[in-house]
């Protein structure tokens, strides 16, 4: 039984109707949802970028708002994916029993999970792209064409953080549980991974911790692209995100099978 739960997640296009169901619900509430998702990162970026930025000389050779903008793309993508799979995912899994209903149809739990993963990534893509649009509007990017590479990177970031969030959803007894994840994982990453200032400003041991965290890898990919350069060690950063994402997804699927298929 345990071994069956540990089997690699099955990947099938059957996830599409699950994704589509979530999309249909979102469409009904699209405008408040977009505003809710964007207001927060945008205010941080504009408020700190211009307010704090006016007191700062250049950071890493660029205006502070430009520096902050790349971090905000990643942080907003992470937040959006995380909120979706934690709170909305938990509602669908536990409160509304939507997953149970779907599994009575010819779909597997693995199909439902893949649908949720893809949906979390889709919603976070929207958040990432919205911030990117602000960047383009303010002409913060060095090269428009180079900044287009942010799209595929944001998709990977969304998948990674959706997968990580699904682990929490699988373990959660109630909505309150998610606070631990925010306090112990999301907030530390926002503060340690180079959203607001270069990681090089941190003491050595914190830099070492930061180097392992997925948000650092995301920012190390996105920031050079906004600044008009190809990221250094791009392959390593992509692999690190993929490793966090795929490992988390496997764990999430295993834990959810244990939770629901009994």
């Amino acid at each position, binding site marked *: *039984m345990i071994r*069956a739960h540990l089997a690699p997640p099955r990947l099938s296009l059957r996830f599409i*109707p699950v994704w589509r169901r979530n999309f249909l*619900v979102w469409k009904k509430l699209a405008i408040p949802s977009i505003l809710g998702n964007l207001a927060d990162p945008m205010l941080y970026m504009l408020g700190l970028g211009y307010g704090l930025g006016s007191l700062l000389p250049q950071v890493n050779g660029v205006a502070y708002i430009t520096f902050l903008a790349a971090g905000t793309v990643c942080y907003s993508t992470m937040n959006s994916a995380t909120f979706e799979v934690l709170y909305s995912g938990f509602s669908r899994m536990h409160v*509304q*029993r939507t997953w149970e209903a779907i599994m*009575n*149809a010819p779909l597997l739990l693995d199909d439902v999970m893949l649908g949720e993963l893809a949906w979390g990534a889709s919603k976070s893509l929207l958040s990432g792209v919205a911030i990117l649009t602000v960047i383009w509007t303010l002409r913060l990017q060095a090269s428009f064409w180079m900044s287009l590479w942010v799209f595929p990177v944001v998709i990977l970031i969304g998948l990674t953080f959706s997968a990580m969030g699904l682990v929490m959803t699988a373990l959660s007894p109630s909505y309150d549980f998610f606070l631990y994840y925010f306090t112990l994982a999301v907030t530390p990453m926002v503060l340690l991974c180079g959203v607001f200032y270069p990681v090089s400003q941190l003491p050595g041991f914190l830099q070492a911790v930061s180097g392992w965290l997925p948000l650092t890898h995301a920012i190390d990919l996105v920031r050079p692209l906004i600044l008009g350069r190809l990221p250094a060690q791009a392959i390593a950063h992509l692999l690190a995100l993929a490793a966090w994402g795929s490992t988390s997804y496997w764990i999430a699927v295993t834990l959810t099978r244990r939770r629901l298929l*009994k």
Partner: protein
Amino acid sequence: MALLAAQGLVKRYGGSEVVRGLDLSIETGECLGLLGPNGAGKTTTLKMLLGLIEPDAGTIECLGLPVPQAAREARVRIGVVPQMDSLDPDFSVAENLQVYGRYFRLPESVLQDRIPSLLDFAGLASRAANKVTTLSGGMKRRLTLARALINDPDLIVLDEPTTGLDPQARHVMWQGLRSLIAQGKTVLLTTHFMDEAERLADRLIVIDHGIKIAEGSPREMIAQYIEPHVIEVFGEGALAWKAEGLRLCTRLETVGETLFCYAVDEAPALDSLKAQTGLRYLHRPSSLEDVFLKLTGRELRDQ
């Protein structure tokens, strides 16, 4: 030929065996009722039959397919009404059917054909555009039944379909189920309402503690397991009449201050009771509920 057959089903959780070697089969066109007190293993059995959980032992063949190996393929032709409400609160009544139909990969044209007739069947045609959250409990259950029919299933599985409904809503639900049975659908139903089982099922299986303890049609089971007459004696002085009751009836049970007297010939006991002016009593034909209580005992099961 059996539409569904299971042999030697076993399911363990930790140290305890919830289902302990259960055999069951359903013929095409039959309505089988699975009865049992809370915790008897009914829902676990259903989940194994649907391939949602793996049995620790035993074999299942459903619609000619091995389960759980080919459970997903089998579920293409099964409709399920789960015990807990799982309708989508964000969608309208009609959208609930449409979105669910997509999980079966039914083309939109087929869905557009089927949805109006299913809404008629569920008595929800005027509610098609309403949100599910505005529906009453009975309407939600009927919508759940309509949802289970979206794929025009060969087998319909219902887990306690009328629990929590008022009498009016239960009767409407039964009417719907009867019409499905009359159409020749095969139905598997769990319930702990004996009147429901008596009204709907062709054949019953009573399970308790994970094993089958009785099987037969409702009529056969009443004839086989219980005396035809029941006299319930209650109120002050009931217990004082107990010795008399034991002499005049075939069998007698005491529950608190009430006596349940079972008799093949009810006349002597009734004559004796008529003479006792202070006693209140109720004489009725025995029912499936009496069989059920005899087989599974009277202790509470939800502790």
